[in-house]
């Protein structure tokens, strides 16, 4: 049997979730077939083929950047090959495609999945519900194909076995261009106008930053990690950062995926504004600082030493 995995890409970049999806698919001990759709695909197929057993490539300009076209094409491919599972990331694209596909194919669907296994021929998933406070195990109903969307970052692609699978070009099954839903353009986030509530990674600085002159250090880290600098109230009080960067009850409430609190003690009003973050890391000299009780990870040291070191390491890992 086979598992289909969508190779997600955008604007010439293959997305990491593609490999995470392959990693998840491997837990089902089946042949993993990646499908790659769109145009100007560059060496995406080769990159995916390195870890997939097989890659199906559909080159069709009409599919590029159109979730409806994606849905129809994937649906056609699945109808033809009847894979046991179709698997993709629970990304923005996944949220648009996967449920539609489930209806089109009359398939059971599980989204935002953090664990996957096969038991007695049935697909079993683990989902994290109620704000991550509860885990639930679910069994998917019997069907020809099941649709699964996995949570980004949950399935490590670090140890994927190399397969160097075969790349096959497939004719586009798309009958006609999608008229009801036309892709127009990508819109970049407005430069300069920083919205800390929209950032996935926040480098948040508090009093411990000590001096306005140390702020570029935080900016550099934010640039390296692709995040944004936010702060606690005192930093705004000192006029070191504008008010719209302030996290807390009297500032913005943020829910980033990563919240790195540098030199923030964790006053109640501050914590109330960031406790929704998925992962909180605290860097503070004072082990007794309340921030450590809300953080998952902590470094007890001077942020002025940790921050530049972290920036360097991240740059290293990225290159």
């Amino acid at each position: 049997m086979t598992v289909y995995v969508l190779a997600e890409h955008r604007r010439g970049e293959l997305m990491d979730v593609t490999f995470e999806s392959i990693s998840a698919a491997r837990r089902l001990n089946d042949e993993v077939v990646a499908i790659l759709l769109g145009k100007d695909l560059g060496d995406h197929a080769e990159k995916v083929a390195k870890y997939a057993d097989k890659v199906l490539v559909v080159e069709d300009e009409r599919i590029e950047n159109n979730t409806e076209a994606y849905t129809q094409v994937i649906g056609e491919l699945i109808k033809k090959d009847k894979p046991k599972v179709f698997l993709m990331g629970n990304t923005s694209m996944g949220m648009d495609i996967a449920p539609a596909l489930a209806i089109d194919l009359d398939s059971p669907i599980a989204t935002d999945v953090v664990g996957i296994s096969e038991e007695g021929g049935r697909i079993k998933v683990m989902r994290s519900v109620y704000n991550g406070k509860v885990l639930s195990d679910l069994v998917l109903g019997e069907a020809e194909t099941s649709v699964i969307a996995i949570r980004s970052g949950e399935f490590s692609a670090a140890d994927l076995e190399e397969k160097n699978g075969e790349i096959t070009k497939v004719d586009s099954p798309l009958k006609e261009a999608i008229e009801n839903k036309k892709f127009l353009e990508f819109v970049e986030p407005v430069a300069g106008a920083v919205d800390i509530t929209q950032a996935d990674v926040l480098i948040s600085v508090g009093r411990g930053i000590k001096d306005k002159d140390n702020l570029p250090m935080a900016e550099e880290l934010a640039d390296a990690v692709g995040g944004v600098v936010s702060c606690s109230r005192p930093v705004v009080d000192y006029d070191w950062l504008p008010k719209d960067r302030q996290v807390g009850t009297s500032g913005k409430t943020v829910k980033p995926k990563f919240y790195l609190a540098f030199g923030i003690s964790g006053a109640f009003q501050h914590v109330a504004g960031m406790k929704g973050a998925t992962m909180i890391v605290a860097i503070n000299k004072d082990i007794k600082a309340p921030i450590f009780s809300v953080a998952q990870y902590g470094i007890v040291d001077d942020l002025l030493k940790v921050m530049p070191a972290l920036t360097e390491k991240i740059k290293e890992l990225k290159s």
Partner: protein
Amino acid sequence: MDVIVCVKKVPDTAEADVSVGAGGREINKERLTFAINEWDNYAVEEAIRLKEEDEGTVTVVTVGGKDKEDILRRSLAMGADKAIRLDMEDPEDSFVLANVLYTLIKDQKFDLVLFGAQSGDFNSGVTGVMVARMLGISHAAMVNGIEVLDGRTKTSRELEGGLNEIYEIKLPALFTIQTGINEPRYVSISGIRKARKKELKVMTPADVGVTEVKPMLSLEKMYLPPPGKIAEIIGGSPEEAAAKLASLLKEKGAF
């Protein structure tokens, strides 16, 4: 522009201690507070804004018992015109719910149907798109901007990394709304009192003609995750600690 918004009442578990009931099928809800699902609240606000820009009506819909009516009243106070509660037990899964809502909506007059992009309890994020598919209309998920043109909309979808993609979508359509699309207005207590006069229709599955469908997922068990360590301290020199943190961040997908 006639807009239907589907809303759901969910428990607030962000800060509360959550425990799982004896059967492992559901969490204990006695000490939890319930409110309109956060994403749905944005959807209601968006619907009202669209109505305020143009003429039309906003109808809010929910499925469940009488205890769910407060979120409808609240939506009416926000500015919705009509509310419908489909009086029935909570559906077993999103597919069953989608089927119920589809049955209800298909006979209503609408240009646009809005859902929250996901819900704060199970965060599946599938119901809206399923309903769209059942209705056979266009959809967009994770919508963070709607501009109404003549019979079409310019719709912005939120992608990863702060990027947006813009679609032109023909109406009627269904969008699932991402938080941040607007700033939902505050609903004052006196506003809720005043909105008591507005119509809140209670319908039964029989009224709507709901047919039974089989759930797609079956719950095996719910359980608490193993107790997480509070702030696992990363030791070593600043450089060592930074290196470990950098790897950890990479592993978790921060960059």
